[in-house]
C-alpha cells in the first residue's frame, strides 16, 4: 500500500498521447487516465499526491493551479477497496430495522418456544417498536433523499465495523425490550408520555437540522458554509451548537432509554454520545479553522458544556 508507483505526466496544450494532458485538466481526469492503464484501481480508490508523504489532492484541483511545471510527477496510493457512503448507510440502517422487528414478533429460537410469535402484553413495548422502526425508516429516507455527501466512498472494511455496531446493539436492546419477562417503566404512563414527547421533539429537530444542512449546499456542489438558524424554531439551536443534529440524536435516544427503562439502551446511548462528541469536536474545529467569522458562542454538541 505504499506510494511506490509514480505517474509521470507531461502537460502540453494538445493531448494526443496518453500521459499528456492539457493544463486545465483536473485531478479527476488524471485518475480516469490512470484507471485506464491500471484497471484494477478505479478512481475512488486512488489517492494522488504531489509528495509521497503529502496530502491527497482533490478531484476538482486543476493542474495549472498546482505547483508543477511542464511535467508533473504524481505519487499514487491505493486506498483499498471502496464502498459508497449511500450503500453503507442503507445497509447499516436496514439491519436494526429488520432485527428489532424479528425480536418484536418473537421469531422462533430467540425466546422459549412457548412464546413464539406471541406479542408482549405491555403497550409500551408496542410503542417502543413503533418509535425504533420510525427512527430507522427516517434515517433510510434521509439517506436516499436528504443527505448530500461530500465524500463518495469509504474503505470497504468500514461496512463490517459499522454493521457490527448497529446490528449488534439493535439485537441486544431488542432482546430485552421484547422479552416475555420485560419490566415496564417504574413511573408508568407519566414516564412513558414524557419519554415519547422528548423522542418526537428530537426526531423533528434532527430532521429539521438535516434539511437545513442540505439547503446550505446546492445540488452537486461541495461548497462549505456556516449553518445558521432558519425560520424553523428547531434550527434556532444553531445559535448555541455547531452540530445540533448530534444533540437531537442524543435527545432521541435519551427519550427512548426513558421510555423502555432498559440498561442496554442506556449503554447504546452512552456509546453513541461518546462517538458523536468526537465527531462534533472535529467538525467544530474544522469550522473554526475554515471560517474566521465563526460565531464564538457555539459549542460542539452540548450548549456551553461540551
Amino acid at each position, binding site marked *: *500500500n505504499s506510494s511506490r508507483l509514480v505517474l509521470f505526466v507531461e502537460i502540453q496544450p494538445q493531448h494526443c498521447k496518453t500521459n499528456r494532458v492539457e493544463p486545465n485538466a483536473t485531478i479527476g481526469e488524471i485518475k480516469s487516465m490512470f484507471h485506464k492503464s491500471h484497471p484494477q484501481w478505479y478512481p475512488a480508490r486512488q489517492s494522488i499526491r504531489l509528495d509521497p508523504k503529502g496530502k491527497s489532492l482533490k478531484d476538482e484541483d486543476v493542474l495549472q493551479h498546482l505547483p508543477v511545471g511542464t511535467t508533473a510527477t504524481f505519487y499514487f496510493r491505493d486506498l483499498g477497496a471502496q464502498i459508497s457512503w449511500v450503500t453503507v448507510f442503507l445497509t447499516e440502517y436496514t439491519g436494526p430495522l429488520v432485527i428489532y422487528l424479528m425480536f418484536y414478533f418473537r421469531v422462533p429460537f430467540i425466546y422459549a418456544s412457548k412464546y413464539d410469535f406471541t406479542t408482549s402484553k405491555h403497550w409500551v413495548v408496542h410503542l417502543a417498536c413503533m418509535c425504533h422502526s420510525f427512527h430507522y425508516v427516517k434515517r433510510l429516507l434521509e439517506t436516499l433523499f436528504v443527505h448530500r455527501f461530500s465524500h463518495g466512498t469509504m474503505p470497504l472494511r468500514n461496512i463490517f465495523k459499522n454493521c457490527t455496531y448497529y446490528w449488534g446493539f439493535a439485537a441486544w436492546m431488542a432482546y*430485552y*425490550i421484547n*422479552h416475555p*419477562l*420485560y*419490566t415496564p417503566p417504574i413511573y408508568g404512563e407519566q414516564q412513558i408520555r414524557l419519554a415519547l414527547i422528548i423522542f418526537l421533539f428530537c426526531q423533528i429537530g434532527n430532521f429539521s437540522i438535516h434539511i437545513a444542512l442540505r439547503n446550505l449546499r446546492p445540488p452537486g456542489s461541495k461548497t462549505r458554509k456556516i449553518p445558521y438558524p432558519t425560520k424553523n424554531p428547531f434550527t434556532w439551536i444553531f445559535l448555541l451548537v455547531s452540530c445540533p443534529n448530534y444533540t437531537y440524536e442524543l435527545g432521541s435516544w435519551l427519550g427512548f432509554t426513558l421510555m423502555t*427503562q*432498559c*440498561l442496554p439502551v442506556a449503554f447504546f446511548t452512552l456509546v453513541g454520545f461518546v462517538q458523536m462528541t468526537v465527531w462534533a469536536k472535529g467538525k467544530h474545529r474544522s469550522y473554526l479553522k475554515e471560517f474566521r467569522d465563526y460565531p464564538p458562542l457555539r459549542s460542539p454538541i452540548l450548549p456551553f458544556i461540551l
Partner: protein
Amino acid sequence: MASSEEDGTVEEKENNNKKRTKSALVTAWLTFYNIAMTAGWLVLAITMMRFYIQRGTHKGLYRSIARTLKFFQTFALVEVRLTFVGIVKTSVIVNGVQVCSRIFMVWFVTNSIRQIQNEESVILFLVVWTVMEISRYSYYTFSLLHHLPYFIKWARYNFFIVLYPLGVAGELLTIYAALPFVRRSGMYSMRLPNKYNVSFDYYYCLIIVMLSYIPLFPQLYLHMLRQRRRVLHGEVIVEKDE
C-alpha cells in the same frame, strides 16, 4: 506560534529549555516507576521461591503473595496512561489489552473465586508473569539509564517466545477450572425480570473471554515477534499503515 524574526531565537531557546526540563522530569519519573516495578516483581519472585522452598508445596502460595500481586499488577494501569499520552512508545492498544487481561485475571478470577487459588495453572501463570515483568521492567530501567546490558535486551525479546504461550495456557486453564464454581454460585450474574431489563451471566462471560484469546493472542505474539526482529536484528518492518 508566530514570532518575529528578531526575538524568535530567544523565545525558541526559552521554549527549548522548558521542554528540556519537562522531559528531564518525565524521564526521572519514568525511571523511578520502572525501578519500583522491577523491585516489586523481584520481591514477588523471591517470596514465591521462599514459600516453595520452605513449605515444599504450592498450596497457599497464592494467598501469601495475593496483596503484593494485586498492588503491583494494578499499578501497571499507569502505563496505559503513559502510552496514551505518548510518553512511552508502545502501542496503546497492545499495552491496554495486556494490562486489561492481567487485571481481569487478578481481580475477577483468582481474587474472587477462592476455590481455584491452589490450582497448578495459577502457579504457572504467576511464574511466567514474574519472569516476563522482571525482564521487561529492568529492560526499561536500563534503557532509560542508557546502560543496557545485552543480556537484558536478549532476555526481554526472547523469553516471551516460550513464556507467552505458557502464560496463556496457565490463564486459560485457570479460567476453565473456575467455570463450575461460577456456575454453581451464580456470582456477578443478574437474571430477569429486573427493573433495568438486562441480564448478565458471568459463566458465559468467562467463556467469551476464553474465546477472545483466539484472535487476540496471535496478534500480541506476532507484534512481539516483529519487535524482536526490529530490536535484535535491526530489520525494518514496514507496518501496514492506514
